[in-house]
């Protein structure tokens, strides 16, 4: 008797279409109606525990957010699992829009390197449990490097330091997203867990590379 492992399905969104990500390159799946019709949303989601949807756009405009939320609204109608939404959350006001449009949790990546005060402000309004921090990482010469801005900007801080900062921050969960393994279905890099376990006492999720049931059971 214990807490179950969770399987979380992650989709990306850009200009009216949903995408799967492969090594940070997007593969189009379909628009919201296609998704509801063919992915069997409401049915398929009976087999995953949570869903994450990320708006992919470097500087999302007001209408980018508007279109995103409009499609999310349609999608979540028959979705009875936790929904995490993210992408382009650069200030408090944008985070408010995400929560008002049905996010149970929001996903923060870039902001966690830049402005911890905004994250604290969001946490004081919506609770620390509503904030997931995603860390995009990639191995270069066998060293783990961290990236922000959709994997485009290399950050100088080490993963250990970053996690130490996050441990003191009001956030609920940490998602380690491997850029190397993203969407390759070749297996999840679990070795990173050994590296981080000592640095943080928050729930950790590992993302990237799940392709077979064995990949999940080994986690």
């Amino acid at each position, binding site marked *: 008797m214990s*807490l179950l492992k969770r399987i979380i399905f992650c989709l990306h969104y850009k200009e009216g279409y949903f995408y799967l990500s492969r090594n940070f390159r997007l593969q189009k799946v379909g628009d919201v109606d296609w998704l509801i019709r063919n992915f069997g949303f409401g049915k398929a989601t*009976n087999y995953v*525990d949570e869903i994450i949807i990320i708006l992919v756009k470097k500087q999302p405009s007001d209408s980018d957010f508007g279109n995103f939320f409009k499609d999310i609204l349609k999608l979540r109608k028959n979705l009875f699992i936790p929904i995490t939404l993210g992408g382009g959350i650069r200030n408090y006001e944008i985070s408010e829009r995400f*929560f008002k449009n049905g996010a149970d949790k929001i996903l923060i990546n870039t902001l966690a390197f830049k402005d911890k005060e905004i994250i604290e402000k969001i946490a004081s309004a919506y609770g620390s449990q509503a904030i997931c921090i995603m860390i995009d990482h990639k191995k270069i010469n066998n060293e783990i490097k961290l990236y922000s801005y959709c994997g485009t900007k290399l950050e100088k801080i080490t993963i250990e330091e970053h996690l130490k900062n996050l441990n003191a921050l009001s956030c609920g969960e940490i998602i380690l997203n491997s850029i190397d393994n993203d969407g390759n279905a070749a297996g999840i890099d679990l070795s990173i867990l050994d590296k981080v376990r000592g640095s943080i006492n928050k729930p950790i999720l590992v993302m990237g590379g799940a392709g077979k049931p064995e990949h999940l059971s080994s986690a």
Partner: protein
Amino acid sequence: MITKKTKICIVDYGFGNIASIENALGYLKFDYSSQKIPKDLDNFSHIILPGVGSFEAGMGKLNELGWETNIKNFVKKGGYLFGICLGMQLLFKHGTDEKTDQIIEGLGFFEGKCKKFFQNKKTNKLPLPHVGFNEVIHKNTKIWNGIKNSSYFYFIHSYRIYFSENSYDCARTIYGEEFISFIEKSKVFGSQFHPEKSHLTGLNLIQNFCNLQ
């Protein structure tokens, strides 16, 4: 007894994902309405009190908007009440402030005190918040009709009401320690987990609550 037509009021006091509960009630084809301030509660048969976040802030808002007295009167008059997550914690007599550890008064339907997990930090090192699907061991009361014992529900919280012997029909869950994951007494119910985020099992529980009369 005259049975009132089922109509559900969702307390929209700014804490928690109201839309998820609206979606669930809509999906189950119940008549519902979300209210920011209490109005014409006599027209309703059931109240759902959602919520995430801090006990102090939540209670403060219920007071400010006039919900506290209205909810108490509603229950006195025989209405059904269901608190979810923070909404359940607020049904208890006491909560604790996150920073000062000061005692805060709740709605007081149940005896008990809401505190952070793992008061004994030396023995427990599980990550917080407690998040994910965990097992709920229930007492097979009417509201659990059709739901297997030890079913899994979605939790996300760092505060809990420690499980100890009491006179209520409680369900319990274990995360490093045993805590109350569901409580009921007469017409007042509370779940620490989110039934609206717990697949079809959760919808089943919401349906059972709304069908009580």
